[in-house]
């Protein structure tokens, strides 16, 4: 066994220990902490705009910190991207639509704090009695924004309480980090690219902000960060996964809806999820070959 192999094994070991702890603590500790953070934010009232003029609340990275992070990206020791193949699973049957993932993502990644820009979101599908089509809504519906939170906190409203609902479920959405990403295909500068270990990344120092990628993404996963003038999308928290951590949304998910891991490791949560379930991907006809695998989604899910 080479030193490299030992390292991989050690890393895998770390991951599974963390997963175990994560599973134990997810419902209580992590979600609790973030709900706490969210409440602190709400109680701060008008504090959603930071002193530095950034859009986000004060615990988000401000523009100066962002510029510093872009200028001097942290070195990741002992990470070899040829040895991983990250993948994501969504078990729609488990999702309760609490939207902790959306808020955690926005905090972790300094996403614009409004309902029209997001790296991940949850869709609610509701079939009313007698209807063959689902009513769909998500965080961009103003009714699903917590009043007074200045579009920093979200909660699905109870709009169907007087209706007869026959079927209802939630579907979490995020960037599919496709095998054949159309966003990468259309990027005129090569600022967005497919990393060897799976995620599609954006070089925000090189992006010109033409938004061709936003148009090309079949899943609506991309947006323009207007403050920065560059494209914005989920990268499965690349800064975390390369250090052996879970993406923020996976970390906070209290029900285990979101599953993440390394497909090169047959025992990783995502490998098991894909192996043990009948999974599907979104819009397979687009030919993008997504890397987010869904269990329990319906014909209406697009």
């Amino acid at each position: 066994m080479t030193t490299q192999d030992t390292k991989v094994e050690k890393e895998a070991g770390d991951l599974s220990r963390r997963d175990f702890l994560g599973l134990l603590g997810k419902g209580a500790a992590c979600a609790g902490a973030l709900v706490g953070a969210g409440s602190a934010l709400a109680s701060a009232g008008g504090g959603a705009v930071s002193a530095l003029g950034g859009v986000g609340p004060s615990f988000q990275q401000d523009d100066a910190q962002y510029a510093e992070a872009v200028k001097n990206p942290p070195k990741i020791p002992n990470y070899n991207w040829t040895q991983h193949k990250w993948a994501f699973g969504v078990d729609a049957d488990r999702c309760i639509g609490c939207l902790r993932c959306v808020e955690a993502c926005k905090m972790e990644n300094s996403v614009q704090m409004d309902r029209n820009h997001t790296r991940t979101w949850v869709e609610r599908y509701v079939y009313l009695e007698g209807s063959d089509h689902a009513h769909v809504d998500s965080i961009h519906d103003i009714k699903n924004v917590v009043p007074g939170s200045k579009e920093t906190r979200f909660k699905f409203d109870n709009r169907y309480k007087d209706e007869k609902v026959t079927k209802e479920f939630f579907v979490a959405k995020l960037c599919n980090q496709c095998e054949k990403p159309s966003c990468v295909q259309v990027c005129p500068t090569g600022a967005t690219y497919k990393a060897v270990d799976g995620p599609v990344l954006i070089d925000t120092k090189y992006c010109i902000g033409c938004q061709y990628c936003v148009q090309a993404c079949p899943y609506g996963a991309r947006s323009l960060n207007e403050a920065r003038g560059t494209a914005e999308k989920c990268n499965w928290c690349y800064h975390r996964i390369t250090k052996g951590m879970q993406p923020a949304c996976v970390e906070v998910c209290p029900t285990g809806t979101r599953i993440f891991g390394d497909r090169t490791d047959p025992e990783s949560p995502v490998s098991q999820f894909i192996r043990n379930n009948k999974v599907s991907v979104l819009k397979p006809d687009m030919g993008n070959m997504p890397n987010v695998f869904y269990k329990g989604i319906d014909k209406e899910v697009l």
Partner: protein
Amino acid sequence: MEADVFHHIAPFVGFAYPNETEVPWSELIVIYPYITGLVAGAFVVSSLHHVFGMERFAPISKFALLASLCFMFFAPTPLLFHLGQPTRALNAVLTPHWTSAMAAFGYVAGFYIVLLLLETWFSFRADIVAMSKSRTGIMQKVYQVLTLGSDDVSPRALHTDHTIARRLAMIGIPGACGLHGYVGFLFGSLKTREWWSSDLMPVIFLLSAVGSGVGLLIVIYVIASWWRKTPTNNGAMEGLLYLLWTGIVVVVVIEALEMVQMLYKAREGIEGVFALIQGPITNSMIIQWGGSFLALVITSIMMLYNTKGKRLVFWLFISGLLMMVGVLAMRWNVVIGGQELSKTMRGLMTYHPEVFGRESLFTVATLFTAPFVVLYLAQKLLPTVWEADPEEHEDKVFDIHKAI
């Protein structure tokens, strides 16, 4: 700050992805293909004389060339205003990512500007030489510089000029078609939007470009003649009528075919397409089709009755204007309409353009006025008297043989 964040947010109905509610491509991307289309159209008219020797277009061919050049200068500007990081615009040229349809834009546009500049110089060299001899003061120096040191106006040299200009125009025709077909490809090649994803898109863009370009030439030719108090040339006007009629017929037929095909195929989400037509783009659809049909009717009647003289000038002017407006509405329907229909095909956005701001109607108006101003100035520098009837304007003509 918040105003900046929210200013492109479009209200929506049905279900669209959250990120889609910010419309990525604004009215600046409407005007961009429109301007390149005018360039292509004007160039085609100029080439009909330069390449094919159609004498009826002789009076306006150099004017058309100059118009084409002036509009081409401004074709890339809407894109620059639209970029999130305009200072990095050259990244796409310095390190083009060749799988992107957009990567070639800098090269295609650059090539075409150079080609137009060269053809203009060869077409106007004799005039420039004449003016470098006849003018005085600073303008003489300017014209001397513009001659680039080549002041030979012997018949042999003039023949060479003509030959080179013709060859450049011959390259320019596929160039203009390529340039505009390429713009259509930028939209048509995106599989994500049913409204764009059509094999006919490059053809539609190209044909409507020629139609609107001819319309533009008619409009500015009539206005310039009125401004100069000179009559328009009847032969040229008739030629433009034939061109415009052909343009409208082909454009209307191809666009109708595209629509019918989309509706007949009725793939998943066709209800969304119907809702789009009956919803956010209803008005611009009425303008597009109404303008085209009206122009078609007017030009057809003029063709039938062989209209001549003042009536021809007036009604052709109206038809040209209708064609320009119709094609502008068509660009809106394609660019904005495509984004108003959600990628889920189950939601609609309604885009409201801003009046002032970086990406606003004001910017569009400014960028679209600029080529006319530059054309006016270019006319001052390189007067294109209506070449066919010089004896009527002897005082204004720079007769090369008198000047030397």
